[in-house]
C-alpha cells in the first residue's frame, strides 16, 4: 500500500517539530519558527481582557434569563430589584422600547427564508432557556447578581420542541407568527444525481445510504464573553470594548441596530481569549450594554459566567445528515446525495443559517464525481441559537464524506485508502473544478497520504489489528482515516454575494514607514491567539527588508485600524497577511522612486534587496529603506509632483477560496469489556501551502485536533425533553484536559497555493475539520468485525459497549429516559436502553 503511493511523488518533506528560534538570520523571516512577540505580556499576567477594564463610575450589568425553554411572558416586574442595595436601574424590554432594536442576521440564505425578530430582551415570548428577559444595573458585580433574583417574571409555559424531525411537523411552533419551524430549504445541484443512481443500479453497482448525527457542541472559548461600553463625555459617542472577533462588523451592526451614527461608535477588541467562531457575532448583551450606557450616561460592564455562557453564547454543529452515494462495484463514485437538517435553535444570530451552506460545497471533498445533490433544511427548535464554530459547516461535511467512504469500503470489501485513491483528484489534474463548482488550485493527496501512512506504520497496524481479532483480544484496535480538504481564506466577495451573504470577504492592510525607519502595519484582521503580531511582522520584515523587531502591528481597534473584515474562517493569513505583503510591495515601489531620485539613477536601474536600494553597476550607490523613509519625511528632495509619503494601503479581495488538505490517520484501542476507546496514535500530515511560521502552524494544528477529537470522544450539549440544557456547566460538558488527549504526530507537505503571491492556504480550522471522522472511524473500525456498523458521537464507552452488545445499534442516546441526547427518534435501530 505505502509503496504504491510513494512512487514518483514530488512533495517537499518538512521537519517534524520546528524548534523555536528567537532571531532569524538577516533577511529571511518567512518560514522560520520565530518565537512570538505576543508572549511576554501574556506569560507575566499583563493582559488586557475586557473584564479587566476599570473606569470611573463603572456600573455592572447582570441579565435575568429565562429558566424555561418556551413561554409567554405575561409580566416582568423589576420594582423589587430597584429596591436592592447598590442597584442603579433595572429594565425590561418594555422599559427600553425600540432603543434595543432587533439583533441582525447577515445571511438570508434564500429569498423566502423565515427570519423572525430577535429582540435583545425578550418582549412577549421566550424561546430558549437562557434567553435574556431583563437587565439589572448596579454599582458592583455582587449587588447586580443579588438583584437579579428580585426580578419577578410571570411565565406561562408553552410546549418545547428539541428534535428537528418533530419540529418539522409544525405541531409545536417556535415562532407562532411565522406559522412554520422550517427556516429554509437550500438546494444545490451539480450534474444529475438521479441519473447517477439509475446508472449504479443498472450496472450492478451500489447505492449506499447512511445517517450520521452531528451533535450539538458548545464552543467554550476559555475567556467568557465580556463587554464594556464607555460613553464619551461629550455628545452621543461611545467606545465599546468587547471580547469579539469582529470589531469592524460589530461597529456597523451596533450602529444599525441602535440607531447611533457609525462614526460615533468606536469598537475595541482588547485581548480576546479565544473565539473559535463563538465571538463572531452580534450579541444581545452588547446591544443592551450600549443602550444602557447611553440611557444612564455612565460606563457599564457585563461579563458572562461560564454556565450563563453555555446558554447565552452560540452553539455549534447540530445536524442530521442523510447521505447517499451511488458507485460502481469497483468503488468509483458516480454521484453523491446529501440531505441535511440543520438546527438553527430558536433564533437566527449573525450567520446561523449560512453555516450548513458553507459546508455545501465540501461534501464531494477531494473526490471526482459527475453528480452531486445537496439539500439543507434549516429548522427552528427551542434551544440556544447555533452559529459558527471552528470549521463552520466544513467539519460536518468532511465527517459525512469521510465516514461514508470508509463505510462504503467495508461494504465493497475494498481497502479504505485504496477506495479513496480510486476517486481522488490526482496531483497532475490541478487546478480542478469540482462538481460543486469550486476550483481547487493545487494539492497533492498522494504525497500527504504516503507520508501519513509511513509515519503511522499503517501496514504494521493492520497486521496487529488482524492478530488481535484472531485471538479475540479483549482490547481491539481500529484505524480511522480522513483525507480532507477544506475551503477557507474566506472569501471572494462576489461568491459571497451570490450566496446572499451580507458582507464581503476582502481584507485591508496599511503600512506606515515612520521617520526613524520603524514600521507600523495596520491590519484589518483581529487575532485572538493566532499570532498575527508575529506573523505579519515576518511578512512585512521580509518584504521591506527591515528587522523583525522594528515592526509593530496594529489591530483590533476601529479607530486605529479602521478598515477590515476581521478574523474567522481561516482567512486572516490568506487574505489579510497577503494584503500586508501587497501593501509592503507598494511601499517598496514608492520608496524605489525616491531612492532613484536620491541616487540620481533611472528607476529601472534601481534594485532592492535586504532593505537596501542600489544601482546596477554602481556598487557604492545605495540607500536603505530607512534612509528613504526619513528623506520622505523631510521631503527636501523628492521627485517633482510626488506626494511626500511612501506609505501604502492594500485591500485584497481574494480571487478564490484556498484549499488546504491533508491525510489524518488514527489508531484507537477499544477495551471491549468497558467499551472505552483510547487513541493510541494520531498522525496528521497537512498541506497548507507555504508556511510563514511553522511554530504557529503546528500550534494551530494541535489546537484544531484537540477540538475535533473532543467532538468524537467527549463533548455533547444535551437537552432534555423540556429543552433544559442538561450539560449546563463544565462538570457535565466535557472539555478535555491534557490527560485526556494523546500526543500528536504532525508533519506537512507543501504544495503552494497558486492564487496568492505568498502561496499560503490557511490552517486555523483544518485540524478540527479533519480529525473527527478519523477518530470515530477508528472506533467503529475497532469493533466492526463484531457487527458494529455505526456508533453515535461522542463515542462514549457506554455507547461503544451498547453497540458491541446490541448488534445493529449505534449505541444510542447516552442520557437517561426523559432526556434526549439528540432529540426524539434517533436511528431506526436504537432507543438507548438495554435490549
Amino acid at each position, binding site marked *: 500500500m505505502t509503496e504504491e503511493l510513494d512512487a514518483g511523488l514530488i512533495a517537499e518533506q518538512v521537519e517534524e517539530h520546528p524548534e523555536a528560534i528567537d532571531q532569524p538570520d538577516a533577511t529571511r523571516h518567512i518560514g522560520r519558527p520565530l518565537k512570538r512577540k505576543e508572549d511576554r505580556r501574556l506569560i507575566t499576567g499583563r493582559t488586557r481582557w475586557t473584564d479587566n477594564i476599570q473606569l470611573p463610575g463603572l456600573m455592572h450589568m447582570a441579565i435575568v434569563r429565562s429558566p424555561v425553554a418556551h413561554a409567554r411572558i405575561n409580566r416582568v416586574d423589576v420594582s423589587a430589584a430597584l429596591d436592592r442595595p447598590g442597584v442603579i436601574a433595572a429594565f425590561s424590554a418594555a422599559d427600553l422600547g425600540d432603543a434595543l432594536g432587533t439583533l441582525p442576521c447577515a445571511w438570508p440564505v434564500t429569498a423566502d427564508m423565515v427570519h423572525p425578530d430577535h429582540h435583545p430582551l425578550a418582549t412577549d415570548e421566550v424561546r430558549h432557556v437562557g434567553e435574556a428577559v431583563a437587565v439589572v444595573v448596579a454599582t458592583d*458585580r*455582587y449587588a447586580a*447578581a*443579588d438583584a437579579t*433574583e428580585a426580578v419577578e417574571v410571570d411565565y406561562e409555559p408553552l410546549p418545547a420542541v428539541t428534535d428537528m424531525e418533530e419540529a418539522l411537523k409544525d405541531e409545536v411552533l417556535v415562532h407562532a407568527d411565522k406559522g412554520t419551524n422550517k427556516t429554509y430549504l437550500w438546494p444545490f445541484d451539480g450534474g444529475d444525481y438521479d441519473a447517477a443512481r439509475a446508472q449504479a443500479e443498472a450496472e450492478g453497482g451500489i447505492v449506499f445510504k447512511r445517517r450520521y448525527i452531528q451533535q450539538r457542541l458548545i464552543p467554550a472559548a476559555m475567556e467568557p464573553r465580556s463587554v464594556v461600553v464607555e460613553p464619551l463625555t461629550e455628545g452621543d459617542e461611545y467606545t465599546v470594548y468587547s471580547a469579539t472577533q469582529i470589531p469592524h462588523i460589530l461597529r456597523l451592526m451596533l450602529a444599525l441596530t441602535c440607531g447611533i451614527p457609525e462614526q460615533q461608535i468606536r469598537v475595541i477588541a482588547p485581548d480576546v481569549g479565544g473565539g473559535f467562531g463563538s465571538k463572531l457575532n452580534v450579541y444581545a448583551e452588547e446591544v443592551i450594554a450600549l443602550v444602557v450606557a447611553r440611557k444612564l450616561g455612565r460606563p457599564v460592564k457585563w461579563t458572562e*459566567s*461560564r*454556565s*450563563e455562557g453555555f446558554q447565552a453564547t452560540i452553539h455549534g454543529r447540530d445536524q442530521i445528515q442523510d447521505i447517499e452515494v451511488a458507485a460502481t462495484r469497483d468503488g468509483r463514485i458516480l454521484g453523491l446525495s446529501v440531505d441535511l437538517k440543520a438546527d438553527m435553535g430558536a433564533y437566527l444570530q449573525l450567520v446561523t443559517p449560512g453555516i450548513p451552506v458553507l459546508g455545501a460545497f465540501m461534501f464531494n471533498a477531494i473526490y471526482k464525481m459527475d453528480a452531486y445533490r445537496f439539500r439543507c433544511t434549516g429548522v427552528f427548535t427551542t434551544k440556544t441559537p447555533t452559529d459558527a464554530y471552528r470549521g463552520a459547516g466544513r467539519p460536518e461535511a468532511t465527517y459525512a464524506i469521510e465516514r461514508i467512504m470508509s463505510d462504503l469500503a467495508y461494504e465493497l470489501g475494498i481497502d479504505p485508502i485504496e477506495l479513496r485513491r480510486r476517486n481522488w483528484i490526482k496531483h497532475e489534474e490541478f487546478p480542478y473544478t469540482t462538481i460543486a463548482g469550486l476550483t481547487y488550485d493545487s494539492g497533492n493527496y498522494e504525497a500527504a497520504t504516503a507520508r501519513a501512512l509511513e509515519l503511522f506504520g499503517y501496514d504494521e497496524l493492520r497486521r496487529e489489528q488482524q492478530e488481535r481479532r484472531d485471538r479475540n483480544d479483549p482490547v481491539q484496535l481500529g484505524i480511522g482515516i480522513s483525507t480532507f480538504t477544506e475551503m477557507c481564506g474566506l472569501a471572494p466577495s462576489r461568491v459571497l454575494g451570490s450566496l446572499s451573504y451580507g458582507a464581503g470577504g476582502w481584507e485591508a492592510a496599511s503600512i506606515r514607514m515612520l521617520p526613524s525607519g520603524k514600521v507600523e502595519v495596520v491590519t484589518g484582521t483581529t487575532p485572538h491567539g493566532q499570532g498575527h503580531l508575529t506573523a505579519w511582522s515576518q511578512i512585512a520584515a521580509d518584504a521591506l527588508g527591515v528587522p523583525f523587531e522594528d515592526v509593530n502591528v496594529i489591530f483590533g481597534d476601529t479607530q486605529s485600524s479602521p478598515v477590515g473584515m476581521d478574523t474567522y474562517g481561516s482567512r486572516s493569513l490568506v487574505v489579510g497577511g497577503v494584503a500586508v505583503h501587497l501593501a509592503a510591495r507598494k511601499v517598496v515601489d514608492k520608496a524605489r522612486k525616491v531612492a532613484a531620485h536620491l541616487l540620481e539613477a533611472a528607476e529601472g536601474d534601481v534594485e532592492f534587496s535586504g532593505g537596501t536600494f542600489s544601482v546596477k553597476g554602481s556598487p557604492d550607490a545605495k540607500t536603505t529603506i530607512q534612509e528613504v523613509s526619513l528623506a520622505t519625511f523631510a521631503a527636501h528632495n523628492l521627485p517633482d509632483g510626488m506626494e511626500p509619503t511612501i506609505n501604502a494601503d492594500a485591500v485584497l479581495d481574494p480571487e478564490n477560496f484556498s484549499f488546504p488538505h491533508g491525510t489524518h490517520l488514527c489508531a484507537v484501542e477499544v477495551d471491549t*469489556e*468497558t467499551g*472505552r476507546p483510547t487513541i493510541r496514535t494520531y498522525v496528521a500530515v497537512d498541506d497548507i501551502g507555504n508556511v510563514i511560521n511553522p511554530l504557529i502552524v503546528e500550534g494551530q494544528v494541535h489546537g484544531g485536533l484537540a477540538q475535533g477529537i473532543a467532538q468524537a470522544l*467527549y463533548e455533547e450539549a*444535551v437537552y432534555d425533553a423540556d429543552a433544559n440544557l*442538561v*450539560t449546563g*456547566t463544565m*462538570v*457535565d460538558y*466535557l472539555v*478535555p*484536559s491534557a*490527560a*485526556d488527549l494523546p500526543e500528536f504526530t504532525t508533519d506537512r507537505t507543501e504544495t503552494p497555493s497558486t492564487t496568492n503571491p505568498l502561496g499560503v492556504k490557511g490552517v486555523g480550522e483544518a485540524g478540527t475539520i479533519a480529525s473527527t471522522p478519523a477518530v470515530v472511524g477508528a472506533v467503529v473500525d475497532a469493533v466492526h468485525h463484531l457487527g458494529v456498523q455505526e456508533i453515535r458521537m461522542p463515542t*462514549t*464507552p*457506554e455507547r461503544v*459497549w*451498547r453497540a458491541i452488545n446490541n448488534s445493529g445499534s449505534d449505541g444510542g442516546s*447516552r*442520557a*437517561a*429516559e426523559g*432526556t434526549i441526547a439528540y432529540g426524539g427518534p434517533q436511528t431506526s435501530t436504537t432507543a*438507548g*436502553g*438495554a435490549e
Partner: protein
Amino acid sequence: MIPPEFDYLRPHSVDAAVTELGRAGEDAKVLAGGQSLLPLLRLRLAYPTVLVDLGGVGELRGVRRDGDELVIGSMTTHHEVMHDPLVAEHCPLLAQATSTVADPAVRHRGTFGGALSHADPAGDLPAVAAALEATFVIEGPNGRRSVPAAEFFSDYLETAVQPGEVLVEVRVPVLGPGWGSAYEKFNRVAQAWAVVGVAALVRTEGGSIAEARIGLTNMGPTPVRASACEQALAGVSTQNGGIGQATDLAADGTEPPSDLSAQADYRQHLARVLSRRAVQKAVAAT
C-alpha cells in the same frame, strides 16, 4: 457565579466550633476546604446563613497512629493524606483513592473529612471508608460519639453528622500483613467524578483469598458494600478464573442511578468488570 450573602465565623477549637454552630442554628454550614461547598454556593444551590470555618482549628489536622488504628483529622487535606508516610504504610488504598480525587489544586484545599461529610455518591472516599470499615468520630453539644462507616452515610448528600455537630476524625483499622488493595475508578475524563468506582481490599492466605471487602462508588445514593461478591470471593483461589465468577455478583442488590453519565445497566456491568480488575490488582499487591 457569585455566592449569596452569609455571616462568617472562624473558631479556633472544636468546642468553640460546636458552640458557634449551635448558636447559628439549622441553616449554618461547616466550611472545611470549600471545594464542595463553594461551588454549590457559586451556583446558588444553597443559601446558608452562616459559615463556620474550621480552617483555624489546628487540632483537626494531621494523621497519627493510635494503637491499631490510623487516626486522620477531618481537616487533613487530600494532598496531606496522599503524601502521609503513615497512610502510605498502613493504608495505601486511601492514598491511591485520594490521588484520583479531582486535581492537584483542589487536593491542596479539599479535606478528607469535608469530602466524607459532603457524601456525594460519586465521590471516591465514602466507598473507601466503607471498605475500610472506618469509624467516624463526631463531636456535638452532648460530647463525642463514634459511628461506624456502615451507618455513617444515610442518604444522598446526607450523613450521621447532625446540624450543630462537627466531624472530628476518622479512625481506620490498621490492617495487618496479607492485605492488598486497589481502587479502580472509571470516569469519562480525568478530572471527572467516577461513573463507577470500586475499592477492593483482599487478604490472601496460601493461594486463596481469605477475605475481601468491596466498596462501590456511585452505585446508589450511598456507598455500597458488594456483599454477595465479598462472600463469593472467600476461599477462591488466586490462580485460576474463579475471581471473575465471584465478581460477577458485584452488582447484586444494587440500584444504581440512570443519569447523564451512564444508565443503570451499564453501571452494573462496570461494577462487575471493575470489581474483577480491582480484586486482581489487590491480590497482586499482597
